[in-house]
């Protein structure tokens, strides 16, 4: 098997992976860095982020505000020491991007502009029109091209982490172009593989967000943390799930039910604010979990509007005017017209909640280190946790930068501590044999598309905005069954070159593992907190569940779920107040 030796191998070249790679290249130019990605870096899903990235920069704002917004927004499930580190590093990282040339939108005086975002008390979201993630990704990618020590392996699909003597010693990956397995013999590995929204049928997530990074770590013995917390974004286009950024509401857009009522006032987020004058942390600028849940109730009351693609509400931006919409939300206008045939300048746009973001992920400490020596994780695939039970919009892009860099620093420190056992060859051979068996298997009775559909249905039905013990039990049974049946799939395509049938089969394997961790963790959490709402346990239960869940892989059976205390330093659990009454 062809072998590549590296000091650090990074799986994933989205925002988190690129940030890590640049940090490594800058601090130790002689380091051999392998940047491995199943798509070209600029195709990574960070490109889809629209709204912006949060970091305190303006004089009327403070780190304390950002801290409180994040911790309260996360329903007190965030680790407060991690949040402190995050908010302190955030401005530095966003300025670093500015110094690398990111085209942030500007104020008249030439300083960076910030915009309001849901759940944030002050305006602190840096943005580049409504293509913020796109510009961050391309700025990082293009910046990375000046470092010869970053060796890229584009369109390489990582299949296994290699673990020997209790350390991570590399990985295997399929070169898509040849179909050949490659062995990456690496002294340390950083996973930056992104989210897993594709477990659900209706999502803002691109095709590549299949939870591979999470599954890689999970199977290698690192637990997945807080997987039951799946964020629904309130405003996706009903036809395709395409996101209309929260900045629509930040700029003053409002949500209406079929009677034209701004219904959020009926769910503790009122009183109604004047049209076109959004008030921070109130009404449409409440947090995503609350807004999505409010829609669910409206739907039950019969107040949703019916569309060909199911129930929806209306996002009304008409009062912003054509000029503002074109300047600040050009992509939103373009997509509404293209995919829904509705121009937000003249008509309200139908939208509905859509699966968007994984709060949970690979359990890491505040230094982005996992429990497996030599393995680090950052970005959406990781759970530090700063996002707790509900991420605030625009904290994620910043998190990629802060913890992408942190993972690089930690990996360097690990290398400096010295050697590691040689080897991994036998493990790489075994990984290769497993994939070969899958490709060559005959007599299989299951298909990738078939199992995927059943998985998505189960997730949509039982692991959505509101959940019940009964539904979750059914989902647990279903996922156990699907994982069994997965072992009997047979590929239609048994060739080597760019075999997407194989790729999708492997991705399905990742999603099934992640999905089982989601439903098992959700079944075990008998309370309602943030994005995890149980009809049978409607209240938050701090006595029992002010704790992170940890799902540990257990081979063929379901994961073992255990708990770990949340780090509380100075903000005791309180009431999340998004009414106009808050000071």
């Amino acid at each position, binding site marked *: 098997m062809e072998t590549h030796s590296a000091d650090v191998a990074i799986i994933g070249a989205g925002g988190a992976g690129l940030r890590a790679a640049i940090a490594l290249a800058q601090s130790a130019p002689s380091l051999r860095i392998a940047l491995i990605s199943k798509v070209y870096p600029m*195709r990574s*899903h960070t490109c889809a982020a629209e709204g912006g990235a949060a970091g305190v920069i303006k004089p009327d704002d403070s780190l304390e505000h950002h801290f409180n917004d994040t911790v309260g927004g996360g329903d007190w499930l965030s680790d407060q020491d991690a949040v402190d580190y995050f908010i302190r590093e955030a401005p530095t990282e966003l300025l670093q991007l500015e110094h690398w040339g990111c085209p942030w939108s500007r104020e008249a005086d030439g300083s960076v502009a910030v915009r309001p975002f849901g759940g944030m008390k002050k305006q602190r979201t840096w943005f580049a029109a409504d293509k913020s993630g796109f510009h961050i990704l391309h700025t990082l990618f293009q910046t990375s091209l000046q470092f010869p020590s970053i060796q890229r392996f584009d369109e390489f699909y990582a299949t296994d982490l290699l673990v020997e003597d209790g350390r991570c010693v590399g990985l295997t990956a399929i070169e898509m172009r040849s179909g050949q397995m490659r062995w990456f013999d690496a002294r340390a590995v950083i996973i930056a593989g992104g989210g897993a929204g594709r477990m659900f049928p209706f999502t803002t997530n*691109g095709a590549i967000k299949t939870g591979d990074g999470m599954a890689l770590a999970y199977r290698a013995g690192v637990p997945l943390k807080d997987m039951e917390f799946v964020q629904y974004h309130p405003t996706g286009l009903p036809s395709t799930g395409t996101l209309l950024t929260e900045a629509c509401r930040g700029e003053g857009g409002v949500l209406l039910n079929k009677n034209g009522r701004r219904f959020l006032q009926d769910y503790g987020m009122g009183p109604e604010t004047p049209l076109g004058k959004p008030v921070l942390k109130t009404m449409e600028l409440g947090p995503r979990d609350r807004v999505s849940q409010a829609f669910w109730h409206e739907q039950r009351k019969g107040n949703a509007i019916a569309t060909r693609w199911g129930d929806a509400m209306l996002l009304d931006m008409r009062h912003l005017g054509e000029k503002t919409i074109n300047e600040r939300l050009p992509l939103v206008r373009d997509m509404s017209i293209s995919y829904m045939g509705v121009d937000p300048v003249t008509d309200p746009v139908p939208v509905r909640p859509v699966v968007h973001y994984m709060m949970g992920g690979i359990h890491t400490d505040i230094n982005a280190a996992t429990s497996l020596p030599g393995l680090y994780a950052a970005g959406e695939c990781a759970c530090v946790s700063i996002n707790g039970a509900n991420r605030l919009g625009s904290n994620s892009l910043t998190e990629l930068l802060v913890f992408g860099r942190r993972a690089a620093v930690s990996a360097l420190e690990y290398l400096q501590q010295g050697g590691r056992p040689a080897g991994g060859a036998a493990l790489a051979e075994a990984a290769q044999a497993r994939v070969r068996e899958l490709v060559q298997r005959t007599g299989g009775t299951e298909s990738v*598309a078939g199992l995927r559909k059943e998985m998505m249905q189960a997730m949509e039905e039982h692991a959505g905005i509101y959940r019940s013990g009964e539904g979750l039990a059914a989902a647990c049974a279903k996922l156990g069954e699907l994982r069994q049946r997965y072992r009997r799939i047979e590929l239609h*395509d048994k060739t080597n070159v760019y*075999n997407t049938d194989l790729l999708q089969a492997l991705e399905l394997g990742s999603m099934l593992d992640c999905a089982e961790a989601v439903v098992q963790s959700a079944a075990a959490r008998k309370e309602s907190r943030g994005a995890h709402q149980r009809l049978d346990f409607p209240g938050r239960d701090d006595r029992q569940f002010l704790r992170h869940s940890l799902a540990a892989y257990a081979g063929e059976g379901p994961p073992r779920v255990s708990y770990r205390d949340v780090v509380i330093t100075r903000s005791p659990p309180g009431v999340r107040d998004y009414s106009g009454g808050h000071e």
Partner: protein
Amino acid sequence: MRQVELEVLRYNPETDREPHFQRYAVDCQEEWVVLDALNHVKETLDPTLSYRWSCHMAVCGSCGMMVNGEPKLACKAFLRDYPGVIRVEPLRHFPVERDLVTVIDDFVAKLARVKPYLIPKDKAPEAAEFRQTPAQLKRYKQFTLCINCMLCYAACPEYGLIPKYLGPAAIALAHRWNRDSRDGGRDARQEELAATEGAWECSFVGACSEVCPEHVDPAGAIQQVKIESTVDWYQAHLMPWTKK
């Protein structure tokens, strides 16, 4: 609901001597794009079909292909705009890796050559941003919008004839950095840009700007690069005293 005839170019280097077309009859929703139809084929008719896609919102740049002979993003090619048979082929001017998947190594290498990163003019301010007014931002903003989708390369007759040509997107991106008020790297990029295979290769057909889904206007960038290079030449040769 409408039944759409898709005619898709297939090529697997391991099993096919040469490319051929395969027909699929696909039941489609009215509002679908070509990508939705391909996904439907992949899921229900033929799992062996290979193509790239991810975001389905015209920003990742993966799904460029020829649709009825024109370079398009499959996620933005609406079926309603194609009444008859829809012929789908890999992007022109690129080697085919398999089916609709092309090899884009050439562009990726060229992009690196034009130094598409900030070469700062001044030292970055301590704990603060470089100031840049909205007007200064506007000078280059359009050229930052390139999603590297390669449609312009597929449309460019020059690139078809002379593969060494830097091509529209790489030039537009180099130009983007040259026009950034924070940047001082124009001289460093000029060598690639002003070379024969740089901007001068372009015979100004303008096809690149016509097909660009992001309205980057690479043709405009190329024209500006040419004008600036000409000014450079005059300054260096005829008025050497004016050169800073």
